[in-house]
């Protein structure tokens, strides 16, 4: 009996030391079951995230080039070219905004790229003093696309006046190119990390812990959907959280024609990610959909419900005006209805999907809810 006890205390000790790493990345080879999470992560990295960043950095390089063109030679033609590239890059951004993981998370890429409404008085202060450090956390609402939106569309009423404003204001032109070059350098860092070491790390981290790639990515995805797509682009301007509509919080406020386009781009990116459509739309890979279909224990067809709901949202959103400010003023009900459709997928993604995938919000002791 004594020998038995001591031997089992030893077994216990051995097992407890090897199983202590709740937060460790699994270094053990993953056995092959029928669903290959490594393949899922590979498809997400190679078909979606990396091409997304390559497109986006290319568009940003063009944006930066045109910003410099405009800065050296500010006229109607260079402004027109700059605005085109602004739109292209802003749209490409919507496809990668949800992937706040790895280097993007470390650099707070989203906060430095697309915080709106932008702080116009601080921007003017920055321009007039010429002294600003855009890397400070307090400066996130003075840069990125919303600040560019203001500089290209909002500093004066007419296009002629905007050209005039910039041609007479070298400091403003410097601020403009500082904004684009900061976007370029931040994003290049993220892209280089993905095409470099991070891809392998991301794919190999295919365990089930709270810090595994899939766990983090799914949490990031839902966070993006809820906070940025649902609330940021629709809910907050429509006044869902304030009681009164707040049209000045719409995305693309100064360009006055892109808020719907930007929203649809983000929405399509979110639904493409779910079904596994590649960024360049030439391939369907492993995805949350295929994973859910594999796990579906009771034949709930959850993935079908989520896809159907994405279609409902798109149908509702297509009724909206290109400019959400106009839509809110004329008929805010349509905005609220779009929000309601978005909300239905929050429940399917956050409640049903997270349960099916058994993904937890946090690392904490539990004994089963």
């Amino acid at each position, binding site marked *: 009996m004594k020998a038995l006890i001591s031997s*089992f205390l030893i077994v216990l000790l051995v097992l407890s030391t090897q199983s202590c790493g709740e937060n460790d990345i699994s270094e053990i080879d993953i056995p092959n079951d029928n669903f290959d999470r490594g393949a899922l992560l590979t498809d997400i990295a190679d078909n979606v995230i990396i091409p997304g960043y390559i497109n986006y950095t290319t568009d940003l390089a063009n944006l930066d080039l045109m910003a410099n063109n405009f800065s050296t030679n500010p006229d109607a033609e260079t402004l027109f070219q700059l605005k085109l590239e602004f739109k292209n890059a802003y749209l490409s951004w919507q496809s990668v905004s949800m992937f706040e993981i790895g280097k993007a998370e470390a650099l707070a890429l989203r906060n430095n790229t697309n915080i709106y409404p932008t702080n116009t008085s601080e921007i003017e202060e920055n321009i007039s003093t010429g002294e600003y450090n855009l890397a400070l956390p307090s400066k996130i609402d003075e840069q990125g696309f919303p600040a560019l939106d203001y500089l290209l569309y909002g500093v004066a009423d007419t296009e002629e006046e905007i050209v005039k404003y910039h041609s007479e204001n070298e400091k403003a032109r410097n601020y403009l190119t500082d904004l684009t070059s900061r976007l370029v350098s931040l994003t290049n860092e993220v892209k280089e990390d993905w095409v470099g070491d991070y891809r392998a790390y991301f794919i190999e981290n295919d365990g089930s812990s709270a810090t595994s790639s899939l766990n983090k990515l799914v949490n990031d995805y839902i966070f993006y959907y809820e906070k940025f797509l649902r609330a940021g682009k629709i809910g907050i301007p429509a006044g869902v959280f304030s009681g009164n509509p707040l049209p000045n919080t719409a995305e693309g406020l100064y360009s006055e024609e892109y808020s719907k386009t930007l929203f649809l781009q983000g929405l399509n990116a979110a639904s493409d990610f779910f079904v596994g459509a590649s960024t360049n739309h030439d391939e369907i890979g492993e995805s949350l959909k295929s994973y859910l279909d594999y796990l579906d224990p*009771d034949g709930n067809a959850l993935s079908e419900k989520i896809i159907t709901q994405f279609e409902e949202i798109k149908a509702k959103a297509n009724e909206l005006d290109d400019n959400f400010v106009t839509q809110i003023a004329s008929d805010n009900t349509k905005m609220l209805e779009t929000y309601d459709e978005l909300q239905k997928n929050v*429940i399917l993604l956050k409640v049903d999907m997270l349960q099916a995938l058994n993904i937890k919000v946090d690392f*904490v*002791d539990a004994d089963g*809810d």
Partner: protein
Amino acid sequence: MQFHRLKYEFSETTSAAPLALFRILFGIMMFISIVRFWYYGWIEKFYIEPKFFFSYYGFDWLRPLGEWTYLLFIICGLSSILVAIGYKYRLSIVVFFLSFTYIELMDKTTYLNHYYFISILSFLMIFLPASVYYSMDARADKTKAYEYIPRWTIDCIKLLLGIVYFYAGLAKLQPDWMLRAMPLKIWLPSKYDIPLLGNLLHENWVHYAFSWGGAAYDLLIPFLLINKRTRGFAFVAVVIFHVLTRVLFPIGMFPYIMIVSALIFFDPSVHHKILGYISNILKIDKTNFDNRRALAYSNTSATKFRNSILIVFFVIQILLPFRFLAYPGNLFWTEQGFRFSWRVMLMEKAGYANFKIVDGVSGKRFYVNNSDFLTAQQQKMMSTQPDMIVEYAHFLGNKFALDGHQNIEIYVESYVALNGRPSRPYINPNIDLMKVSDGFENKEWILPY
């Protein structure tokens, strides 16, 4: 003859070693638990950072103490060491019980059956002679040192352990667990990266084997541990079962606590042997404690008082898990009578609760962003538990009233998915939560399951 064998002899004495070793191991385990909790940064994260805390019914006066919460954990940790070494034991175990229970009552979000087990176990230990043998107290005062103690004092702990296991087993005898292998069917496949077992965990038969095996284990293990002939086998089962739960689930210190607790079922010779090892290592003269003296409780009013407390304690333990029978509806859905009943690992429940603040006169309305007030963990727990939903709604009502809002009505649009079924509406969305309160009466505003 049969009747005679069932009679329990309260005056029978036995060696004090099992209870002394239990005290030592309990104290050490508690100390490790406190250190681990601190090391993970959970004191900050669970008790200092949140802006709002969920109270237990009647305990809303009991709150985290800001930075002083650390002092509470220090007191709890120190008292657990004092319990282990048996120094001023009665005072130490009282301080441990109070500080640990205070910690657990601070926020309902962190409720675990394991923590409740520690609270009631330490309460029980207040009344047991755990420091008359192999302790600082016994060494300091020979008149309080005894080699033998009444057998029932050890059997109290066995009884409590038996209740925990057996009721946990009873709770598993329901359709989701036995017939659908839920929630293990959800939990096990996501542990595909466990060495050796990972391959098997997506197999249907494994889910059922674990479900049925777990239920059988819980129901049988107390009896197998009591019976001398099956005890060795039972302890092996205890070790394997709990190590397995440790590997598969984020269950913290509990498996280790249960494994060392199960040692109490062994004969005193085993405990003497273990204490002998400890004595050798620490250079303690164990023979000092083997004084042939037997503790006998005199028939004083203090003894009677203690006995009645223990009787009431066990009656409550036996009856409390059945209180759910007083409520209509599905227990897992309504959670009325769910806590404090050893319903462990029984359900996977996920929810979403969206609160709508309405001005009852003007009809103006807006939605609340829960993350403005609650942590992710609090949101998760709140959204599936009706009492927490109401408490949070009242907090929101008071908060927005202070902000100058008037005629506040609060409605919740909530959805819950239970054990792999599709999500369904949870709380009646047409009920103004400001007009309901949490209590022991049936919560009719929970939508039927």
